[in-house]
Structures are given as C-alpha cells and as structure tokens.
C-alpha cells in the first residue's frame, strides 16, 4: 500500500524502510531510531522502550481513521504509535545483520 509511493517507477520486492511503512501483520527488525531535530525526546523514549538495533518489531494493526495510529509489538509489549513517531524507526533490509 505504501511501499511503492516513494519510488513509483521501480518495480522491486516490497521493502519497507521505516516502521510506518510496514504492512499490518508483518514483522521486521529495527536498524535504528532517528532523531528529528537535535535531542529529540520522542526518539529517546522510543529507544528506552526497546526500539533498538536488532529488535524484531511487528505491525499488528492500524487505527480506524486514516490508518493512524499504528499498533506495534516490540518485545512482549504493544504500543500505540502515531505514524510520525513510527517514521523515526528505520528497519533493516531483509537478511542484513545489525
């Protein structure tokens, strides 16, 4: 749904780059959390909650209105994250190692 938005002319396997692009039901591995601006408190909190390199993360479902917020499983815990928050989480491309 969102995977082709960025590169509409490239026909390649669906490879979400950010957590916000992951499809419901799919799992990926976190690469890193990016700061938006300097000393981003949201990014810091995400890292505290377990969004760190090598951690598997699953997009469970999306909110009813406009597909926002996202319900994300990290570790044994489920968090509701807004799309903009989830966009800070970059994912590893499949097969890559941390």
């Amino acid at each position, binding site marked *: 749904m969102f995977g082709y938005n960025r590169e509409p002319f490239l026909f390649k396997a669906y490879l979400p780059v950010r957590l916000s692009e992951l499809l419901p039901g799919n799992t990926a591995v976190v690469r890193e959390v990016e700061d*938006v601006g300097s000393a981003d*408190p*949201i990014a*810091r*909190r*995400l890292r*505290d*909650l*377990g969004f*760190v390199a090598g*951690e598997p993360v699953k997009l*469970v*479902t*999306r*909110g*009813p*209105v*406009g597909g*926002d*917020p996202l*319900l994300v*499983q*990290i*570790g*044994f*815990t*489920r*968090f*509701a*994250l*807004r799309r*903009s*928050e989830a966009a800070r989480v970059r994912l590893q491309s499949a097969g890559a190692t941390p």
Partner: protein
Amino acid sequence: MSSAETALRIALVGNPNCGKTALFNLLTGSRQKVANYAGVTVERKQGRYIAPSGRVVDLLDLPGAYSLDAASPDEAITRDVCLGIAAGETRPDLLVCVADATNLRLHLRFVLEVRRLGVPVVLALNMMDAAARRGIRIDIAALERELGIPVIETVAVKRAGARALVERIDGPLPPLPPTGDADLDLHAEVRRLLAATVSMPTRTAATDDAIDRIALHPLWGLVLLGVLMFLIFQSVFSWAEPLMDGIENGIKALGGWSVAALPEGPLRSLLADGVFAGIGSVLVFLPQILILFLFILALEESGYLPRAAFLLDRLMFKAGLSGRSFIPLLSSFACAIPGIMATRSIQDPRDRLATIMVAPLMTCSARLPVYTLLIAAFIPQRTVAGLFNLQGIVLFALYVAGIVSALAVAFVIKRLRRDRSEHALLLELPSYRWPHPRDLAIGLWERAWIFLKRVGGIILALTVLLWFLSSFPAPPEGATGPAIDYSFAGRIGRALEVVFAPVGFNWQICIALIPGLAAREVAVAALGTVYSLSGSDDTIAAELGPLIAGQWPLATALSLLVWYIFAPQCISTLAVIRRETNSWRNVWIAAGYLFALAYAASFITYQITRALTS
C-alpha cells in the same frame, strides 16, 4: 511507638501498570486506586505497616516510569525520589523495584537503571499468577545471581501474595547492588538475562490477540465502542428506576413520620423544607451514580480503556487533543477533579492543558441529578424503535453534547496555539484482565460512601444555609404572598432573574444556581427547598419532579438542561485547575468561556423552543 527515624523507608518503583499500587494496598491495607492502564498513580502516596519483627516500615507508592529520564510530570516525581532530589524528602533506604513477570523485555531495563543508583534494591517479580497461566518459566535463582539483587515472586492481587516480600524486607538490608560498567548497553544486557533465565512459549497472550482482533478492528472496534457507551447510559436509566422509587418512598415515609411529631414552627420547617426536601431530592440519585461507576470501574480494570484511546486518537488529535486525553476525560464523567489530575500522565504540555480546559465539559456525575430530575419531569417515558428508552436517549444526547462541545473547544484552542510542533502518543496497551467482583464491590462501596459524605456534609450545610436565607427575614404583618418572597433568598433570586430572564430562568432557578456553584447536586436540593417553602402545604418535595413539570414551560426546562451541559464550574474544579496549571489566568479563561457558552446555548434553546411551542 517507634519514632520516624527508626522506621525503614521504602519506595515502590517500576514501569507503569506492573502492580505497584496493588502491592502497596496489600502491604499497608490502604485502598489507593488500582486500574489496568498506565498512569493511574500520578502522585506519591505514603503508607505504613508493621513488619513481623515489629519494625515500622514507611512505604512510598510512586507513579510508574518507563525510564528515569522522565518524559512527563508524573515520571519526574519518581525520578526525583529515586535520585534523592525530591524537595523535603530524604532518599529511601530501600527501593522495591516491581516488574511484571509477563513483560520482562520492557521491565528489566528499568530494573537495570534502578540497580545502578547506589541504593539497595529488591526486585519483586509480580503477576506470577498470570505468568504461570501463560507457561512462562523464570529461573529465579539464576536471575538473582545475574542481577546481584534479591528477587522475590509476588502476586499482588492475592491475599498472601506478598508474604515472601514482607519477610525479605524484614531481614537485613541487601548489600548495594554491583555498580558494574557505567555505559553497559542496557538492552543488550536485558536480552542476555532473558536468554539465560526466562523461557516464554509466546510473546503475547492468546486471549489478548483474539479480543483485539475485534476490539481494534477498524469497523467492529468502533461499533463496539459506540454500543458500549450507549448501553451504559441506557442502563443508568432503566436499571436504576426501581431502586430510586424505593429510596424516594423511604424518604417520604421517614420525612412524614418525623415531621408529624413536631409542632408547627421553624424547627419543623427546617426538617421538612430544608433537610428532607433538600437532601432527599439528592439522595435519590445514589443508584444512578453507582451504576455509572460500576461500568467505569469494570472498564478501568478490564484494560479496554487504552484500546478506546487507540481507536479515538486520530479523531481527538484532529480536535486538538490526543488519545491519551481519553482516559482523563472519561474519568471526568465521574468527576472533573480526578480527571484533571489524571492529565499528569499526558507527556505533551499543550495536550495536557487542552485536556484540562475541556475536562469540565464532560458530564460529571454531580450533574446527573439535575439531568434526571428534568428529564423525568419533561421527557415522556416512551419506547423508541421498540427497544430504547426515550429518556435514556435524551440523557445520552446530553452526554454527547458535552463531548462534542469539548472537541469544539479543544479545536479552537489548537487553532489559537502558536507552537505547532509534533505531539507524541506512545501508549502501552496492557493485557486484558477480568475485574474481580470483590474489587468492584469495594469500589462501589467507596463511591457510595463518598456520595453519602457529600450529602451529609457540604450538601446538607448548603441546604440548611439556603433554608435560612429563604426563611428569614419573616414576612411583615399582613403579608399575602408566600413567605419566601420577603426573604433574603427571594430578593437575591428576583435580582438575578433580571439577568437570567432572557434564558428563561425563573427566580427559583436563579436561587438554586448559586449553591450549585459549590456542588452541582445542591441545585436540585435547593430547588426542593425553595419550592417546598413557597408551597402552601407541607408536602415533602420528593415530588419536586411533578411539581416543576406543572409549573415550568418546556422552554425553561430545556434551557436549564442545556445550561448544565456547560454548567459554569463548581468551585473545586476551578481550584484544581489552578493547582495543576499553576496559573490564575487559566482559571479565568475556563470559567469565562464556560459561562459564556452556557449563557449563549441556553439563550438559543430557550428562544427557539418558545417560538416553536407557543
């Protein structure tokens, strides 16, 4: 008595929703609020118990925190106590770090953070019952060895569930935890600990997944939420009725009996017109308030509320709030005061302020008596679509009107705001849990007690005061009209009537509005007293409803209903706004906009209804 110096000082710390408060209640026998979502405890609470050895233990319950790097006002309280920088407080002798055994990937990281504070720490692995049910096995001895701190299993919701913890605390203080490497990667360490000590068949509970498939479904989830809310208001009306009739008859009988024995005179009037007519008319609403609370308590404990916040976040965000505002606003249906305090768990200060400003628009339970009185008197008892009670629908509509105006006001606040940077949500969804019938019963009992204390305290006091103002000075010799016309209250009412005539309020209503500022239910009690005193006979006005139904035009009744949607403020709410925002300006803004909205909406309602019905 042991002095405070020899008491052992302990603080309970840990992630939100791991059972700290349940443990605190179990140990100290207190009844602090326990519920199944993050952000229930927003203040430090102190309690005390006597250990088996006879030693006094001062226990501190703290708000949950995901990290000592605090992100919200409640987390800052916990950080300050842990670091020993809280004002007027020395550092605890021992930290009991509580962790949810089913959620260790998240909670162990905080344990590691606490371990390096340089204070003795005991880890309480709570919710061992839930862990056992899910087949989670934890090698306690190995965990203890790896962490270098004592690890004790607890079940905070079972009576003997903290016995081992009590014994461990009563023993010698554990040695300081190993300081270790200052820049140890906490997440890597948690993963290592989990691999070495915990076996977990599945990451999540199967029941949670099954329920969430429906409860969070884009369509069915919203339908479920709507049906649930609607059912609550239907039952507030239909279940409560037989009970209310019972109470009403009881008060009438008691009033008639006790008044009959007294001679004619001020004392008799005080009892009949002040106490029974005033208090009786409020007491009748106890069943409705309890039914509302039964639902709120059950929802709070079930774990559904954060799900509702998830479903509604987008909508609330568009209106200038956040999904996180949902729970404080829902608590405001009970009373705006705990609701406003609950906003402390909102991280974003802008969202927090907006939530505080609109919380008074949520229909608090003190407005229920006013609504019910007017609805029962003016809205016919009819079945709509073969299923729904028309009175229930009107009540629901009044609640909806409160919600819609809150969203509208929040939207305006958002528009006026200059800082448009991003807002965070970051909300944890807990496991579902069955509410314990015993906890519900205790919760309801407490609510009933609070209500009765209010009735016997402030409401009684105001009613008696109002009776006094309405009875004195006595009418001059040869006066013809009812005595109240000549009293202080009568004169005040008449003076105010000038202001409120455009919205259709008669002078009796104007009198009732004033004590209603202190506690909204008193408005009903005051009407009871005023009408009882203006009446020619001594009927006890548990019959206030039929009485006003005969005297008021429909336009006046609807106008008063609408007035109470906005109900310019009980004074305690304003005081809490002042305390939580630390600003008089916000108090003036809140009171001002509520009054303006109430007046405008009542004016429109009154004029339109009058035009249509005349």
